[in-house]
């Protein structure tokens, strides 16, 4: 099952530059939460704080509290955090020298699983969850880079799922994909929310409207509005949200 995330007064810096200003929000478990906002608004930084990637950047600094369920995320070992909070990036990034199978199995191997049949089971299960199994089951040991862009992205999702995370962060996961692959990823997200808590950063308003239960609008590092997606797209409370989603700025 997915875990809820509670963010309290989260601030993030790049050197001297404050990019997130006192963000507080509760992310519901087993729901899809979309993060929208113009470029540079801090939405990617925000989700990168949720798996402690931001602090790996030189001069990246974070302050505030993030709880995963009841556990303080910043008191945990960052390696453990990244296992329970998986991430899928904008551009599919399979390991180029590895096969399809190895791409999914690598996280498990690093986690100490050595038993071959267990590895194969977990790889199959992950590929099935990522809706890719039927397309690759006969070529598991072929190079991952031979897959199409959409397939590579689903492979990256499978790779993230293999280590059995509780939260899945997706940073514009479909922006480099064609419309059909985009819809497949969206369908997948809707299926995956039964088992995971999903946060998705997207520039595509309609994508947020289609798949997210809740939507958060960020602007200049601030959380402007956060609420039910349908309400957000039919009657947003804040004029800035209205102007952004109707394409009148940003």
């Amino acid at each position: 099952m997915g875990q809820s995330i509670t963010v309290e007064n989260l601030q993030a810096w790049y050197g001297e530059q404050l990019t997130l200003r006192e963000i507080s929000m509760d992310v519901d478990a087993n729901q899809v939460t979309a993060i929208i906002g113009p470029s540079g608004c801090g939405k990617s930084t925000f989700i990168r704080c949720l798996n402690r990637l931001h602090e790996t950047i030189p001069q990246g600094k974070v302050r505030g509290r993030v709880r995963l369920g009841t556990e303080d995320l910043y008191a945990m070992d960052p390696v453990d955090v990244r296992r329970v909070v998986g991430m899928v990036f904008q551009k599919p990034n399979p390991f180029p020298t590895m096969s399809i199978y190895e791409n999914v199995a690598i996280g498990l191997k690093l986690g100490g699983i050595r038993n071959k049949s267990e590895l194969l089971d977990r790889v199959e299960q992950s590929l099935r969850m990522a809706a890719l199994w039927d397309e690759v089951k006969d070529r598991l040991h072929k190079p991952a880079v031979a897959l199409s862009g959409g397939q590579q992205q689903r492979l990256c999702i499978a790779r993230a799922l293999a280590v059995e995370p509780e939260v899945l962060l997706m940073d514009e996961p479909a922006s480099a994909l064609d419309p059909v692959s985009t819809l497949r990823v969206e369908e997948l997200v809707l299926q995956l929310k039964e088992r995971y808590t999903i946060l998705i950063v997207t520039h595509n308003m309609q994508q947020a409207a289609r798949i997210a239960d809740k939507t958060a609008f960020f602007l200049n590092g601030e959380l402007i509005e956060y609420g039910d997606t349908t309400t957000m797209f039919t009657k947003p409370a804040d004029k800035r949200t209205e102007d952004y989603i109707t394409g009148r700025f940003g």
Partner: protein
Amino acid sequence: MQQRNSLDVALKDLQLKLLRMGADVQEALREAVEALKVLDATRAQKVVDGDKSVNRQEHAIEDLCIRLIATQQPVATDLRKIVAAMRIAADLERMGDNAVDIAKSVVRMNGETLIKPLIDIPKMAGLIDTMITNALRAYVDNSVELAQKLATEDDAVDHIYRSIVEELFTLTSEKPTVISQAMTLAFVGRYLERIGDHATNIGESVIYIVSGERSDLN
């Protein structure tokens, strides 16, 4: 603020189309009532014939809304404006049909003389005419206040309607020979009352555009 030119131009066009349709429906109603006052079947028939144009306008508005939804992916106020425009067009179309119903009643009464001078029906029609004007003005001005006032105006219309029906009922008990025309006139009252209800529906659509809230004005 940055503009979305093509969408903004289309929304303006949508508004103009609705206003033109509203003006035509209002004119049809006026003509139908004028024809009724003097039982002029020829004038009434023109109202009946003119309804095709109102129906065409409704389809044009609907097509424009569908095109905007498909191509512009409107959200928030833009979306509410478009959804409300479809509803308003449907209400105006029904109002046009009710004006036609009145006109058809006049055509059916061809050759008859009125059983009584018409006083309350023109008065009711005058109130309805004001309601249509106010509904369209509320729409143009995004005025919730004007939209809400339609509820009070509709109460006045309903009040006159009840007194028309009571008067006609009394008349028929005194003079059974007038039953047929009295029934027709009672129906005319009913058609007018329905037009008033559609005007309040337009007020509800205006409130929806402005606030996103549902309301009940009748």
